[in-house]
């Protein structure tokens, strides 16, 4: 796979154009883990605990480089958030990655068909995060 950035060049970038990832998860434990994983790759990370809060933030800051969201959340699932993002002209270019603790092929396919960039199984590993670096907007 050719790409302008090889694996070594991946990472958050210089402070003035630092890559900003929005992480959405209702679990405080998982938010802490995903934030640490992303920050150790030098990304700037904002965490929120619901799809609703994610959309509020995106309304104020649409220049997020990636959204990484848990699938199962009360009120709005990651899938529903994905759909809303992809249907929005302001947000649809933002790559969305879904995380789930369950390996359900139908679910994975549905998300990918709806435009998800990738689907990660929890617990998320550093190698999963490394794999995302070429997918940032």
């Amino acid at each position, binding site marked *: 796979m050719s790409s302008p950035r090889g694996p070594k060049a991946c990472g958050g970038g210089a402070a003035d154009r630092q890559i900003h990832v929005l992480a959405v998860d*209702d*679990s*405080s*434990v*998982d938010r*802490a*883990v995903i934030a*640490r*994983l992303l*920050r*150790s790759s030098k990304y700037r990370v904002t965490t929120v605990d619901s799809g609703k809060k994610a959309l509020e933030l995106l309304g104020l800051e649409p220049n997020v480089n990636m959204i990484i969201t848990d699938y*199962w959340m*009360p009120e709005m699932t990651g899938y529903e958030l994905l759909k809303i993002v992809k249907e929005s002209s302001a947000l649809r270019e933002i790559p969305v990655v879904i995380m789930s*603790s369950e390996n359900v092929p139908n679910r994975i396919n549905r998300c990918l068909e709806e435009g998800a960039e990738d689907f990660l199984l*929890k*617990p998320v*590993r*550093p190698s999963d995060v490394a794999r995302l670096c070429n997918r940032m907007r």
Partner: protein
Amino acid sequence: MSLMALRERLNVLVNSMFLEGLLDQQFRQLQMLQDASSPGFVAEVITLFCEDSERMLTELTKLLDQAVVDYQKVDAYVHQLKGSSSSVGAQNVKLACIQFKQFCEENNKEGCLSALNMVKHQYYSLRSKFDTMLQLEQRIQAYDSEQQN
């Protein structure tokens, strides 16, 4: 106790937790993510896990105390607990949650009650060792910052 002795004690404790199946490789992953830029990461995750778990165990106890059990709600909480125990590497707790989910799917109240007891037992065993771990970590950190002064 010397810094070296403290570190040794912590290593022995953590290794025994791996051997007993209390922790799995996910915990190692978390340890590897801790570094100079985030020295309190493992302690933070452990603390969040304990707060979360105790809240969920309280809710589960209440739900199973009802005459008519809302298994959907029970399942939602067990799912959450299973998720966070998996993320922190709390292997025995996670396994007990998997058993619990089974009984939940069968709408088996007796099974759920016994599974809840098992989860509590596993959680509290882990919790007491986590407490010791955090105390040792704190003492080690205190040494380190003293050394720097």
